[in-house]
């Protein structure tokens, strides 16, 4: 592994001082960054260990929902029964992700920032504009079975690989972010991930030194009646081919008051299905509404050579999820 410097600050201010060096990056659980440094896909000059900074752990109930420290581990939140009762899709997305070992290590903040699993991203002998700007996109002519059907550009079609972010954007989660200038801000998670466009090496809108310190998830009727469904090649320990996070608020007469839908495994960023949500609201919870939502969900899909199956798979997964919700 390419050597790097290490700083282990015990305060937010210390982390901001240490991260000023060019090429410095944060490390929490290390499940992504250590792997990518070893693969040659990331080349940090310095890692800044944020695990000693106080106040970034824990799951707390707030007036409007939950506040989760960025250093809470995936396993901590997956095991939280109060979150499970209030927003089942969020907890299910974590329980269906990665493995026992990785859930014990990976932080919630870092999980949102995990990088693509496009096979070429980790192979420095192939072109990859996300890894090495200007080196081309090997997936354009090569293996695009797992590639995105939404949000791709000529420069990159790599899928955002996570599960948690899919459930979170469906329920309007927000991030608390600390900046290198010493300012805290609150930003919708929906504004975190960048479409690849002409600069696919920039996964997010975070500025140099920005640190996610907490996650806020508002409680709602649709979050309480929600589910996360993940379709994959293996029954466990595998990334999604397609996943759907869905939540419904249905009144006593069967009319849908609120609908939340997002899809994973299909977009270059976590993909909210806004049109399909709008089509469901005000309609009767039933076969007709589900079919219309599924059609709208894939209306803007642009499949490549080997991934057209994702269009049908998304429609069928969406209908199956809504039928059981």
């Amino acid at each position, binding site marked *: 592994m390419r*050597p790097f410097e*290490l700083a282990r600050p015990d*305060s937010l201010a*210390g982390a901001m*001082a240490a991260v000023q060096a060019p090429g410095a990056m944060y490390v929490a659980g*290390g499940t992504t960054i*250590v792997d990518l440094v070893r693969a040659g896909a990331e080349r940090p000059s310095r890692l800044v260990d944020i695990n000693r900074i106080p106040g970034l752990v824990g799951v707390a109930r707030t007036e409007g929902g939950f506040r989760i420290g960025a250093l809470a581990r995936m396993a901590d939140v997956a095991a939280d029964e109060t979150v499970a009762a209030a927003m089942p899709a969020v907890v299910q997305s974590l329980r269906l992700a990665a493995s026992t070992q990785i859930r014990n*290590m990976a932080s919630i903040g870092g999980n949102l920032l995990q990088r693509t699993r496009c096979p070429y991203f980790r192979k420095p002998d192939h072109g990859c504009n996300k890894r090495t700007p200007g080196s081309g996109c090997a997936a354009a002519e090569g293996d695009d079975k797992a590639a995105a059907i939404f949000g791709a550009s000529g420069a990159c079609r790599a899928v955002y690989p996570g599960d948690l972010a899919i459930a979170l954007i469906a329920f309007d989660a927000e991030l608390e972010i600390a900046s290198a200038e010493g300012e805290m*801000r609150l930003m919708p998670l929906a504004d975190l991930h960048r479409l690849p466009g002409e600069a696919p090496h920039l996964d997010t809108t975070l500025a140099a030194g920005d640190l996610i310190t907490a996650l806020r998830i508002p409680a709602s009727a649709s979050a309480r009646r929600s589910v996360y469904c993940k379709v994959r090649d293996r029954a466990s320990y595998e990334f999604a081919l397609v996943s759907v996070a869905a939540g419904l608020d249905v009144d006593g007469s069967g009319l849908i008051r609120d609908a939340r839908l997002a899809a994973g495994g299909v977009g270059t960023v976590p993909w909210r299905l806004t049109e399909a949500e709008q089509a469901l609201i005000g309609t009767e919870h039933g076969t007709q509404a589900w079919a219309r939502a599924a059609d709208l969900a894939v209306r803007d899909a642009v499949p490549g050579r080997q991934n057209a199956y994702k269009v049908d798979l998304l429609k069928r997964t969406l209908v199956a999820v809504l039928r059981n919700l």
Partner: protein
Amino acid sequence: MTKSDDPAPDAHEGGAAELTRRDLGKTAMAVTGAVALGAFPVGAEADAIPEILRADDPIPLDLRVNGARLVIEAEPHVSLLDALRERAGLTGTKKGCAQGACGACTVQVDGKPVLSCLTLAALVEGAEITTVEGLADGEDLHPLQRAFIEQDAFQCGFCTPGQLMTGAACLAEGAATSPGAIREYMSGTLCRCGAYPNIVAAVDTAGREG
């Protein structure tokens, strides 16, 4: 943003093509729904600049392994796996894929199974680390080790230390409630010989016999 405090970049000098990540962040904050939450001290007022450990310099690491203090020297990029095997001579923990995919390197940190190949040794000072060498109580094998022998839960044996450390945690957490639950808990620990039915039987019987 006003002209007086942030003049527009000179188009002849590169302009938008030279946007930095920080500029992008500012742009994002301007056009998205970000809300200011307050401030915290940074820079000179903070007086909190941490020690920077140099890339090629070994530093002493004060670890707790299998109930004993273990002081080794390692550079910042050394994994817990390499620290155990190469610096401490504890070769029971195996290196399989070295990319977090196979689980052969599983050890327990504060009782929880983790991947030692993706753990930086310098990040687990102060934690209680348990390797397969620490599973037995002296000459008395752990119940799961006995069950592995009774159920013939291995062929080549390379993944066995990782299987044992994952399975022992599964038992300790009370997660071995059914063969399906065991398979799900242990899905990140691969066996290329395909001894899974015997491994699951070993964890299952060890759980029921206590």
